[in-house]
């Protein structure tokens, strides 16, 4: 198994930490993992993305330009990374703020309105965990308990009281992700 993922959106959406939790979930199941952020003079509201690779084998390049999965959380990232999904691959996006929906017909497309759901749940910070839940529904990569363990590893102790609400968000994500179009 090798899964090459790009998670892309605005800074402050929790893009990088979502990638980190995914990696730690992989570590819990003894996978090889790599997490390569776009770094730069970045700030809240600017674009942020991270390339995550999960594999049973030693990972070669942590830097890649085509992906099995793209998780897209704003329009700029849609423009940049929709073309970078491998044919037959997966694109998951949040419809919030999207003005041009994905157009490719050779990839599997799912939509998750996580921003809206996070507001409904009264905790906008759990946005990224809703998205993560949705992703795990489509790609059954890890046992849910590994993800929760990964979450614990990834969060500093002082935030451990936040784990139940994040767990709830992951479950919500599992429920609300919707298939838009799939290819066989």
């Amino acid at each position: 198994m090798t899964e090459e993922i790009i998670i892309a959106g605005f800074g402050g959406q929790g893009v990088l930490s979502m990638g980190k939790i995914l990696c730690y979930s992989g570590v819990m199941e003894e996978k090889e993992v790599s997490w390569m952020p776009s770094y730069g003079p970045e700030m809240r509201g600017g674009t942020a993305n991270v390339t995550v690779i999960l594999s049973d084998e030693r990972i070669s390049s942590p830097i890649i330009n085509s992906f099995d999965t793209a998780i897209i959380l704003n329009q700029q990232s849609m423009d940049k990374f929709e073309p970078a999904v491998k044919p037959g691959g997966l694109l998951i996006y949040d419809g919030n703020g999207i003005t041009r929906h994905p157009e490719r017909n050779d990839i599997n497309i799912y939509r998750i309105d996580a921003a809206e759901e996070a507001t409904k749940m009264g905790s906008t910070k759990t946005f990224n965990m809703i998205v993560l839940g949705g992703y795990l529904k489509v790609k059954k990569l890890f046992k849910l308990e590994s993800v929760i363990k990964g979450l614990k590893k990834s969060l500093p102790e002082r935030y451990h009281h936040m784990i139940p609400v994040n767990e709830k968000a992951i479950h919500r994500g599992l429920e609300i992700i919707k298939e838009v179009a799939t290819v066989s």
Partner: protein
Amino acid sequence: MEEFVLMKGNEAIAEAAIRAGTDGYFGYPITPQSEVIEYLAAAKPHERTGMVLLQAESEVAAINMLYGGAGAGKKVMTSSSSPGISLMQEGISYIAGSELPCLLVNVVRGGPGLGTIQPSQCDYFQSTKGGGHGDYNLIVLAPASVQEMADFVSLGFDLAFKYRNPVMILSDGAIGQMMEKVKFKPQQPRSKKSPDWATTGKTPDRERNIITSLDLDPARQERFNEKLQAKYKEICKKEVRYEKIKCDDAEYLFVAYGTSSRICQKSMQMAREEGIKVGLFRPITLWPFPYNEIREMTGQLKGILSVEMSAGQMVEDVRLAVEGKVKVNHYGRMGGIIPTPDEIVENLKQKIIGG
């Protein structure tokens, strides 16, 4: 049994420094390696091992603090990125000229000048061919993973003390910023004993220890230089390190270190899927460079592509290694751009196979 943790390359260096029993870290923050000093500050090494952590007023000050600490026989290190390492060159030359051990980490960013904060490998010449003035060499280690960022700290110190020579870990912004799994060695105690050459105060039973790089007598200075060169020759004989991947049946070869070697591994897989028999040679020590080990492969090779994030620096050493027997070309990106795996395959086809 230590467990795997997920860490940035820069953080791994910092944790490994504490574990290696380092006596002192002196540095000045600069992107893309500020996580080293940031991690150390949060980890409170003075509570864990008594290690000194000091943010100097500049890189020039930091390297001279290393000079002093190393002279007293202590395990001392610094880390910086390209412009900061340039500022340190005078001190590095003095440390080499005084035959003192220390560990330097360069998390390279694009240059010249202030350049950019994105990853690059454009400091190869500076690291392997001098950098400061005088006939000296650093031992240069090139990690290609977060695990090696950690492992090369203790290896670097071992080599530095074995040869009384500064050692540099030559990394780049990509390895510094990326996270991978890493497993650390158990905590080593800080050494209580000083090497016999250290300036720790004269005792009645021995002569004064003098640490200096100055000797105004040309005859003595030449003898000292000959001694240095003999030491470098021994290092070249004993300390060459490299990794060969899928080289047994290779007709073509990528030579690449650090981040570029990781990308080339992917390019190698892609090219092999198309039936191109390409292998990867990864120098781990950039100085001493594995000249002989590359030369030994010339019989089986039709061409070599040296891949670096620079205008072509290591490629000169690859050419020296093969002595014109095999076609060698360079592919690289500059200014903080990282080449993609398919770009490299394309260049292998154009510059080596087709050209």
